[in-house]
């Protein structure tokens, strides 16, 4: 994961204000982009697929984003968004996430390219918890590996503690805004910390080993919304 961070950082810094001189033409283009500032409500479908500790994960979620586009860029950003999403895990009590992020949109031809970074916080769905078991020829359990998203936060006033996660996220998307409609499709990097625990029952007693791993779980998403 440490190898990945420079790429994410580079992508963000590349467009940060002051890093590169802004020529007049670009400024003019951005002004055009942001003429259609305002509030957008977008509905999203998201598909996560990745792996950690040799366990594979697939998770789908649906959500809504409220995006506020500024009239013109401020401090290098084009706007901000707040989001809610629910993992499709057939459990009404878990898999709820809130998010916030800042974004910058670049006009290029008929569409815009959007780079966003922010966070998600919520109670895990269980979709990122996996256990792999290894059995002997007669069905005796020999060992197993448990891979799980580490709970690094808690929901205030709710027990037990350690029941929530906080994740940094970074999006790259293609956006088309025309009149009151917004259409968006992109990819997301979810920066997640996993616990990878091994339990070996083959010997006398059992042996336990544990490690943590920071992993990027990629997502793809599509969104459709309208200006409010």
């Amino acid at each position: 994961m440490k190898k990945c961070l420079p790429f994410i950082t580079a992508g963000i810094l590349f467009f940060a204000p002051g890093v590169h001189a802004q020529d007049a033409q670009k400024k003019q283009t951005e002004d055009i982009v942001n003429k259609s500032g305002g509030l957008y409500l977008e509905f999203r479908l998201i598909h996560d697929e990745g792996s950690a500790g040799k366990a594979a994960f697939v998770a789908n979620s649906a959500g809504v984003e409220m995006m506020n586009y500024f009239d013109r860029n401020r401090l290098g950003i084009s706007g901000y968004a707040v989001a809610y999403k629910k993992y499709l895990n057939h459990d009404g009590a878990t898999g709820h996430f809130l998010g916030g992020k800042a974004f910058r949109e670049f006009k290029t031809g008929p569409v815009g390219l959007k780079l966003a970074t922010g966070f998600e916080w919520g109670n895990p769905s269980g979709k990122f918890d996996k256990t792999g078991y290894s059995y002997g020829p007669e069905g005796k359990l020999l060992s197993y590996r448990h891979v799980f998203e580490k709970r690094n936060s808690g929901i205030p006033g709710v027990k037990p503690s350690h029941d929530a996660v906080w994740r940094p996220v970074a999006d790259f998307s293609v956006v088309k805004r025309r009149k009151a409609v917004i259409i968006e499709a992109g990819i997301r990097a979810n920066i997640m910390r996993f616990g990878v625990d091994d339990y070996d029952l083959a010997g006398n007693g059992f042996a336990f080993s544990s490690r943590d791993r920071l992993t990027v779980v990629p997502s793809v998403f599509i969104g459709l919304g309208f200006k409010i």
Partner: protein
Amino acid sequence: MNIRRIFVVLFAAVLTAACGRDSNFSIPTAPGAIPGENSWQGRIPWSPYMVIHNDAGALSGYQTAVRELMAHDAIRGARVGMSESEVMNNSPNIINQWLAAQGLELLVIVDNYLLFHDNLEEIMDRVIALHPGATTFQIGNEITTILPKTGRTTTIEEYMKAFRRIYDHVSVKYPNITLVSQSTISAETYGSQELEKMVGLGLIRMSPQRVIIGMNVYGGPTVAGNASVINSQLRSYRVWVTESGSLDPDRQVGHVANSYPALRNQLRAERIYWYALWAGDTGQDNGFGLIKNPYNPPLWESPLYQILTGKR
């Protein structure tokens, strides 16, 4: 927009997405016995363990059912109890004796009422002596919730003091015996909160080599709540789900198909004990059972039982 910059972003995004990906491997979630025709293996993610109530009148029905289940490798162990009076009188329990004689691995519950005795060490000596082949003993069950309010009840603080005394005694005198902590109840997050209290009251200071975490989980928020505790404060401990099941016989198969994988994936349960072979401990049959009418066979068999025994 400079096209070069677009390529840089795309390049960074692709590399980012690719980072951290490992080659996938399959994660089996059922015992690895070779499935035969009409076998439950490969059809449902069953765990070959179940609760068997110690009702002597049900023995003939139990004998029929357990032999059938064993013939299909659908039972390898049973969670059993014995009454306070049986322990105090040193009288063996006929059900437990018969199950042990069949070669089943017993998880013996030390009854909640036995934990009110002052001489806990002697109580443990008696229980262990009455089950010479057993190596796992569960100290209590749903200790703060199952006892009738009309009688004596206890708190989790008092329980943990008793558990610690038993742990110290067994660790010295019976090095081959493993204890299972009382199973927390499956009621929203009550049990998860109680498990977290147990951690703070000293559970974490007991050796993971000697203690397995017990929990009863029928579904719902209990799974997520218990996962929060075991994945943060009890990572080095093994977990046995000592009760899970469905009150509706027609939903038993669905419960195994849908809930058992979640119990394994989220709670890393080594074993899941079905509740129960016969759920007649309240005086009459109810829907949790795999069988009914063990007092007067022929047995009624649930759809799950029929799958486990190769009849459907």
